[in-house]
């Protein structure tokens, strides 16, 4: 099977950019990724064999608009939507086409321009909107409450997680929120859905990220990219069912399903990881993701948080050095690819003052509506 090199990465910062169209954000990121791979758009003609565009709200033919602006049409261009895992899904399709020998190089771009506030989603039926059963933060709050109860965590642990991510986000020029916060600030921010305060929730926003994949066994390469959807039974799954089983202990969550697939494909385990970017839609989601990815045992999150904030670096991989979605905001289609951009920067040793020394193996994780989970492993 062919190796898949991550030949180039590019990013448009995540934030709010007024009337700038999503296409422009995507063109910025895609051109940067092509340049990083060593090609002008003109030089990429004839080399890029296909393009996949991850977006949830971009609308019809979003990818075509980006590729058109880069004068790269004529090739297959496919938009990919899989909720928060859209970027992971696009990456998986692109990688598969290279492994199969179909293309020499493929461009993957993720773009989003999200509305402000609680996301209006066609996922919910009109009656669910009328009944107020469509408040995403409320589902997150129930999940956080369960996590606190079953893992012995407290609201102070949720606040400490936010402090950690904002500390790194302050060092990321591509993040939306670039100031450090204290636990007191976090706990004093507006209550959205108990126990979640405003600063414990990521902000839907705008941005773009792009990756050029190339058939090669050199450099930073894609060791695995796995996608999974949910199994029925867990009432708190991101698929937001109206009911689930009381005995849901035997139902493996999609994050763990995808992680296990990715660990097997890449022939690595959690203990081999140097740097991890994982889903932190809310503070509780990140702490649960650590557990679901096999990075810690139930209830060990507090130990890791304390080691990280009071005594220097915690054991295990560095998690969300980019500042996570809590610092960057979440442009759905771009978020998973943004994680991969961060990992590649880390593995190349070019992550500035948030660099993890000697990073060789990285993992990116998203989980969201569908439910869709993606887990990507990169190595050098």
């Amino acid at each position, binding site marked *: 099977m062919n190796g898949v090199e991550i030949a180039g990465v590019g990013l448009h910062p995540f934030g709010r950019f007024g009337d700038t169209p999503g296409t422009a954000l995507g063109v910025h990121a895609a051109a940067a990724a092509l340049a990083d791979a060593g090609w002008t758009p003109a030089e990429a003609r004839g080399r890029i064999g296909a393009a996949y565009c991850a977006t949830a709200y971009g609308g019809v033919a979003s990818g075509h608009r980006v590729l058109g602006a880069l004068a790269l049409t004529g090739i297959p261009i496919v938009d990919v939507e899989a909720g928060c895992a859209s970027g992971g899904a696009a990456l998986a399709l692109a990688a598969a086409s290279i492994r199969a020998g179909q293309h020499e190089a493929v461009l993957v771009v993720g773009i989003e321009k999200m509305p402000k*506030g*609680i*996301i*209006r989603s066609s996922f919910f*039926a*009109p*009656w669910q*909107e*009328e*009944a*107020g*059963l*469509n*408040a*995403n*933060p*409320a589902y997150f*709050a*129930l999940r956080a*409450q*369960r996590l606190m*109860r079953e893992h012995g965590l407290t609201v102070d642990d949720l606040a400490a997680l936010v402090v950690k991510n904002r500390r790194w986000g302050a060092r990321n020029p591509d993040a939306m929120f670039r100031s450090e916060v204290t636990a007191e600030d976090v706990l004093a921010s*507006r*209550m*959205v*859905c*108990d*126990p*979640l305060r405003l600063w414990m929730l990521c902000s839907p926003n705008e941005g773009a990220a792009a990756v050029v994949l190339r058939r090669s066994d050199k450099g930073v390469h894609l060791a695995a990219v796995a996608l999974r959807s949910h199994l*029925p*039974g867990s*009432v*708190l799954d991101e698929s*937001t*069912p*109206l*009911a*689930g*089983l*009381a*005995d849901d202990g035997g139902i493996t969550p999609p994050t763990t399903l995808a992680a296990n697939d990715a660990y097997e494909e890449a022939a690595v385990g959690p203990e081999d990881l140097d740097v991890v970017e994982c889903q932190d839609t809310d503070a509780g989601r990140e702490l649960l993701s650590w557990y679901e990815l096999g990075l810690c045992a139930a209830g060990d999150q507090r130990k890791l948080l304390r080691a990280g904030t009071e005594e220097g670096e915690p054991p295990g991989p560095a998690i969300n050095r980019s500042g996570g979605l809590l610092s960057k905001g979440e442009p759905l289609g771009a978020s998973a690819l943004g994680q991969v951009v961060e990992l590649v920067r880390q593995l190349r040793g070019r992550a500035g003052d948030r660099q993890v020394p000697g990073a060789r193996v990285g993992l990116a994780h998203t989980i969201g509506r569908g439910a869709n989970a993606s887990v990507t492993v990169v190595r050098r």
Partner: protein
Amino acid sequence: MAEGGSEPGAWLTRDAGGEAALLGGWSPTSGRHHFPPAQLCPYSGADDVEVVTLPSTGSLWAWTAVTSAPPGYEGPVPYGFGIVELDGIGLRVVGRLTEPDPSALRHGQRMVVTTETLPGGRVVWAFAPEASRAALRAPA
């Protein structure tokens, strides 16, 4: 195969005691209940789903309050939102809670099914603390 609408009005009923209750699905193949009733059992894919009246009582498993209106919602805020584990069948159901103050609720608290009428006139299920049903019945 189960028949039923895709809106909450089709899932509301009264149990043998005349109390508000929900209709769910039960598959002999999987031996499991689900809600709302589906054409195929979500656990086995079997097409032998029977529509059954679910228990109208349970215990509170998770709860919060929504403090600002999500898109398309025109009812009061804050409003209670949570999950109740229905008695005896191992099913957890999501719904509105009549109690909008999270500090007034506790894990395992006894709850009953009730209904609420939304501003547009639509009727949906909700869960209320059991004490409120007793209060409704108490002579004036």
